[in-house]
């Protein structure tokens, strides 16, 4: 029986991406280790994403608080606003929104950069120059994305909570220490740890898919644009799939 063309393409893509991931996992532990390039990528990926993530996190915390307030007032539980916002940000909204912003900025940038290098033969030139381009380009970028995203999520959560604190104070008067006492009194270790762990996987997905799309870019400059675009789309979908899987796992382990 012949599979429909779209199904076949989907399965081929999934197989190819899995093979790419397998190659990444085996390459991590084999020398030569590109330490210098790895740290450079940590700077590029982490530091340069910070302003955008800080801005969006701040707005997210502020808006979330302002949107929740009327509903909580209606139920007479306005005093629970810091706790509710804190849990929502730390458990779900912070990691997922930060990962989606990260996919938009870093996934597209990696896809376009590697795609452009591919079509202009820079990756071939690298190989001829005695460099394993997979290690130099893919392993360093994916590891940097994997390690930098959890850090950005933590920073984003903190900034988001500050935005929420300001949001609470737009129509009320809650001191800084009271707000954060209420937030942290209602947060358990099991709220923070699974969210932190899943952000590593979000980073892995963004880095790996950006590299995969760029590394196998074809059809000239049109292909570069397509690589950048599909890196963001596929990474975003996979972020939600990982999130879905993570909630099932934490549920099964009883840490929800």
């Amino acid at each position, binding site marked *: 029986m012949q599979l429909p063309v779209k199904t076949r393409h989907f399965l081929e893509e999934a197989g190819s991406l899995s093979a790419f991931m397998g190659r990444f996992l085996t390459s991590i532990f084999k020398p030569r280790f590109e330490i210098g390039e790895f740290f450079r990528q940590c700077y590029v990926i982490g530091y340069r994403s910070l302003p955008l993530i800080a801005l969006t996190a701040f707005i997210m915390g502020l808006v979330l608080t302002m949107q929740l307030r009327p509903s909580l007032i209606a139920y007479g539980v306005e005093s629970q606003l810091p706790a509710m916002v804190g849990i929502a940000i730390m458990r779900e909204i912070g990691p997922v929104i930060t990962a989606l912003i990260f996919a938009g900025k870093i996934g597209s940038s990696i896809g376009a950069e590697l795609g*452009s290098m591919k079509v*202009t*033969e*820079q990756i*071939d*030139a690298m190989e*001829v*120059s*005695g460099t*394993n381009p997979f290690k130099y380009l893919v392993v360093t970028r994916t590891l940097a994305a994997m390690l930098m995203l959890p850090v950005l999520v933590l920073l984003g959560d903190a900034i988001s909570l500050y935005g929420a604190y300001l949001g609470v104070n737009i129509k009320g008067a809650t001191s800084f220490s009271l707000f954060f006492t209420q937030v942290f009194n209602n947060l358990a270790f099991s709220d923070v740890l699974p969210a932190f762990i899943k952000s590593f996987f979000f980073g892995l997905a963004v880095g790996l898919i950006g590299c995969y799309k760029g590394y196998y870019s074809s059809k000239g400059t049109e292909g570069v644009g397509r690589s950048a675009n599909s890196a963001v789309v596929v990474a975003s979908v996979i972020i939600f799939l990982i999130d879905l899987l993570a909630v099932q796992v934490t549920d099964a382990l009883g840490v929800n």
Partner: protein
Amino acid sequence: MLTLQQHIPVKTPTAGQPVITISHLNKSFGKNAVLKDFALTLNRGEHLVILGKSGSGKSVLIKCIIGLLQPDSGSIEVLGEEITTLEHDALDQVRAKVGFLFQSNALYDSMTVRQNLEFPLRRHWIQVTQLEVDHMVQEALEDVGLAHTIDMMPAELSGGMQKRIALARTLILRPEIILYDEPTAGLDPITGREIIDLIMQVRQKYGSSALIISHDMNCVRLTADKVIVLFEGRPYATGNYATLERSEDPGVKQFFQ
């Protein structure tokens, strides 16, 4: 100062001996057979031009020689090493003695000219001091007459200058063999002529062997000791420029009209 040859233990043929020997080479992409039972020999110090139409398999051949593409079958011996069976590290040792000038120049656009030139030095030849690196970068840039561009980005350079910088990057490892992929493609006739002159100067200064892929007849005429006309993946005709120019064969004649 240590020389590069002291660091990279690859067999070095003596004058006149073959540096590249290809036999029964086949390469296909799907059902499209690009190279069919291809063979050639490049001798030390020789400049061999592969002439052929677009899509005739010239670039595939050159990428097979440098190990960027794996042939389906056949043998490619470079500096005495069978590169189709070499492990990655051993292949890198051979590559350090083979320069490759890419058609698109392939300069790293996120690096300055200096970093572009330092890159192959640092990757192939780890034990080198900064002073030696600076000296070699400077010398390679002087060879192509662009010492003043050392701190510029590739995007700031014209097409001809980028080609010369790419040639400087190729020269920095003092290769015994240089593979030129369409060295004058996309350049105006004057700049193209400058690149041809540079190829000849490099030959004179370093005595390197060269395999040049081209369909620019001016380049072929000025650089070739021997020409192979590639047609449908096979060597169609072989000879020096003057002999082939007089050929009555329509397949050869079409290039020289």
